[in-house]
């Protein structure tokens, strides 16, 4: 490696912040790396890995506590402005001025970067065409959808061709369709202009598109190299297991993940279970574990390598305690899903002229895991809120736990548990105090309350004395679930429960969900991680308020065209088919 033309050279970089409890936390812990020009480079790692801190240091917004950092040959700590004059940076939440129009936002950034008027015209035309926003130039940025805002943010950072482009998780919170568009733009610029790009991401499939990948976790660099090299360590260890007829993939997945001495990782995908075998696994026990499944080898992917690295670091650190002890995972199969617990008929919700949810109908059986998926603004949150009785329906019939939500809303609420997207517990109360408060709010008291609290502390492996606000994200999640389950509801509603928690914590979370469903609790869940749809018994895909698909993950994939495709592509296909159909309708009429 020659340092001569390196875009970035970092040696012994370190940055610490004061944690919520006053102790210093190393966000970046002794990182050295070299990034070469003209390439697409990825920083990959779960939330809290230190990606944003590293990118902000490169952009000259944070000063390293130790080590040196050279960007474009300039010592960024000494002269941040010199770097800032030459780079473009898109923070995680790009600062669009919501009250300015699309064009005005573009003009502002072009002026700030000093783009000459004649270059501007051509550049704007190109950006608007690539982002497909030429029609919306007069619209205020605040009135764009989430995906469009992100595209406009990218266009604003690219009003000129920078010497280095920094993208901090450009695809977080963006639906798969917009995500694909964003990447198309970036790829095109790298090809056409030989742009040097550093992109941080939590999505492994995005890392696979990059020339060079740096894998980070907890402030440290775990590995670096081209994706092809990185994934080699998983070679020969990756398999797919197809469960026998009638067994949900998640049941087999739970069984595999419960055998950590044989299996490194397992996830349901496309009706089967993808897993990584531990190289030193005992053959006999391995075959016994998978006796009823059809096991096939599959090519390794970067995600496999990534999970191996995470598990290895976890073993070394021993920081994350064991996953919560799940109760009986063996499903109590209900022979006759007698009566559905949720009945939705012709549900409609309008906000003024805007129809957020159009005539939607479905049933959910007891003990079922039901997933609501859709792009941003699809109406899933509205549907969800109506089901929990937080928002009255404009019209239609809605029955939850055998009660009509029109006249028995309070009663129905006593039968459901709700875990909201944000951490909605009191951060300055202890774990026990939060549980006591929410138990009390559901009318539990005395001995009953104490027993339930003791049981959930054990189930979720929580320390009652800890201050809730200081818990790590995964544990906050557990506490939120514990409070939602205290009154032993029939139905548990979870709104995007896995956003913002790392892959290991997500595995643990789904493990708990699977076991809860096994106990007969009905689970209604929204998520924007499409692969998580595989854990669901049935999923519903919404777009623009309409139900586009409803059924088992397998059936939905089939509807999308190919049973074997992954959920992400199936989702994109279904939403695009739906949009095409909608566009045809008015023109035919």
């Amino acid at each position, binding site marked *: 490696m020659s340092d001569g033309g390196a875009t970035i050279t970092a040696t012994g970089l370190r940055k610490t912040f004061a944690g919520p409890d006053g102790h210093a936390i190393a966000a970046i812990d002794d990182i050295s790396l070299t990034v070469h020009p003209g390439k697409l480079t990825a920083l990959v790692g779960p939330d809290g890995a230190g990606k944003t801190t590293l990118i902000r240091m490169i952009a000259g917004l944070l000063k390293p506590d130790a080590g040196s950092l050279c960007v474009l040959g300039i010592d960024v700590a000494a002269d941040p*402005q010199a770097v800032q004059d030459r780079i473009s940076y898109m923070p995680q939440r790009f*600062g669009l001025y919501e009250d300015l129009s699309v064009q005005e936002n573009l003009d502002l950034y072009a002026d700030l970067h*000093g783009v000459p008027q004649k270059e501007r015209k051509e550049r704007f035309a190109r950006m608007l065409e690539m982002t497909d926003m030429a029609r919306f130039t007069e619209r205020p940025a605040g009135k764009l959808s989430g995906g469009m805002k992100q595209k406009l943010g990218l266009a604003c950072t690219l009003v000129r061709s920078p010497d280095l482009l*920094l993208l901090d998780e450009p695809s977080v919170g963006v639906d798969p369709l917009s995500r694909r568009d964003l990447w198309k733009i970036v790829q095109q610029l790298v090809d056409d202009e030989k742009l040097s790009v550093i992109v941080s991401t939590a999505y492994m499939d995005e890392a696979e598109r990059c020339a060079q990948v740096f894998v980070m976790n907890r402030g440290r660099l775990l590995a670096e190299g081209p994706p092809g090299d990185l994934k080699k360590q998983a070679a020969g260890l990756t398999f797919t297991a197809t469960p026998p007829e009638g067994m949900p993939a998640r049941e087999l997945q739970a069984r595999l993940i419960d055998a950590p001495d044989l299996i490194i990782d397992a996830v349901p995908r496309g009706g089967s279970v993808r897993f990584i075998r531990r190289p030193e696994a005992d053959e006999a026990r391995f075959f016994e574990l998978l006796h009823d499944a059809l096991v096939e080898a599959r090519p390794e992917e970067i995600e496999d390598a990534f999970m191996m690295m995470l598990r290895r670091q976890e073993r070394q650190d021993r920081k994350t305690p064991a996953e919560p002890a799940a109760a009986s995972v063996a499903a109590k199969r209900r022979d006759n899903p007698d009566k559905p617990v949720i009945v939705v008929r012709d549900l409609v919700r309008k906000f003024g002229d805007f129809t957020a949810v159009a005539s939607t109908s479905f049933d959910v059986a007891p003990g079922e895991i039901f997933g609501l998926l859709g792009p941003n603004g699809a109406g899933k949150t509205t549907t969800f809120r109506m089901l929990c009785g937080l928002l009255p329906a404009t019209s239609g019939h809605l029955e939850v736990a055998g009660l009509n939500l029109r006249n028995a809303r309070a009663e129905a609420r006593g039968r459901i548990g709700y875990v909201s997207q944000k951490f909605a517990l009191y951060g300055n109360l202890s774990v026990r105090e939060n549980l006591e408060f929410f138990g009390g709010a559901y009318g539990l008291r005395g001995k009953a309350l104490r027993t339930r609290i003791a049981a959930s502390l054990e189930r979720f492996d929580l320390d009652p004395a800890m201050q809730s606000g200081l818990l790590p994200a995964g544990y906050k999640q557990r506490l939120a679930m514990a409070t939602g389950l205290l009154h032993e509801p029939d139905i548990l509603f979870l709104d995007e429960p896995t956003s913002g928690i790392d892959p290991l914590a997500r595995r643990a979370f789904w493990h708990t969900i699977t076991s809860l469903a096994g106990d007969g609790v009905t689970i209604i869940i929204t998520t924007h991680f499409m692969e998580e749809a595989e854990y669901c018994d049935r999923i519903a895909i919404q777009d623009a308020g309409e139900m586009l698909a409803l059924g088992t993950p397998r059936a939905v994939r089939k509807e999308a065209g190919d049973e074997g495709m992954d959920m992400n592509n199936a989702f994109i296909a279904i939403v695009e088919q739906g949009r095409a159909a909608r566009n045809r309708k008015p023109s035919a009429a």
Partner: protein
Amino acid sequence: MSASGFTTRLVALTRKETRQMLRDRSNLVVGLLLPVVLILLFGYGLSFDVKDARVTVVLEDSSPTARNIVAGLHGSPYLAPTWETSMAEAERMIRAGETDAILRVPGEFSARLAAGEGGLQLLLNGVDSTTASVIEGYVDGALSVPMQQQADRAGNKPAGAASVTIIRRIWFNETGESTWFLVPGLIVLVMTLIGAFLTSLLVAREWERGTLESLFVTPVRPLELVLSKLAPYIVIGGIDLILCLLAAKYLFLVPMRGSLWIIVVSSLLYLLVSLGLGLFISAITRNQFAASQMALLASFLPAMMLSGFVFDLRNTPVVIQVISQLLPATHFMGLIKTLFMAGDYWPDILRNCSILAFYAIVLIALTRRSLAKRLD
């Protein structure tokens, strides 16, 4: 970076700020409507003048001499005397708040007056002490002339009384109209409100929405950010200043004895100070709610209570006096009142304007520093 880069960026940023200001209706309400409301509220609603004070006269001596003296009360536009015969009833009225004062003319008043020792009793409702002392002054003034005449007529001057006569004149505000000193003070309040309150949201909003992070990684310099945020609000403040001056001149008929241009220049200087204060608070709190609360506490309330707007600061404890001397509002308050009512007095103008200029420069420099392009 070349000077042209500076201009291009400054123009772009100022245009952006102006657009944002014009598109946010609540900004315009606070910036233009609220000053009008304040002008009307303080101009008409707040006054320390007492007009038509209710004085109950209990005439226990009905001699012509007594009647003659008390008749003086009728001549005053500030007093509305009523007549009562029983002292008990008058006392009941003052307790019930039906009257503000009792003037008692005792039984042998004329006889005693003839003897040179005539005395009247004035009972005041001290619940509102300001009003009480104002009424005392009025009654005193209304009675002194007929008393004097009566004494002259009687020809028996009390020994020594005639040799010293105090002739009272109030300078600068001859009739003691409170609007005369409240309305110039209002300019201070309006400038404070526009400056500190409106701008306190500006930087904090950009922190909250994350727009600042994007701006930082561009060739933008901190000073350009500060200047672009000042410019549109100087215009709004200028409009408000014109409104205030028009209202002072044509609505409240306050004299403007100092030069207009000095009034305008010093007001704009003070506007810069409060804009700087607002921006500085906004830049360090990074939170709109905290910033607006703090701006209210640090600028508007002190400007109202501690600047000498209403209360004479010389009567306050030393600590408060020290604090008030630290407030730019106090210096501008003193200056603008002098300018309006007393005229140009250069030593005062120069001293106060330099203090204001000093504050403006310090605050703007501090804001610029707090916008150093750093997130840690």
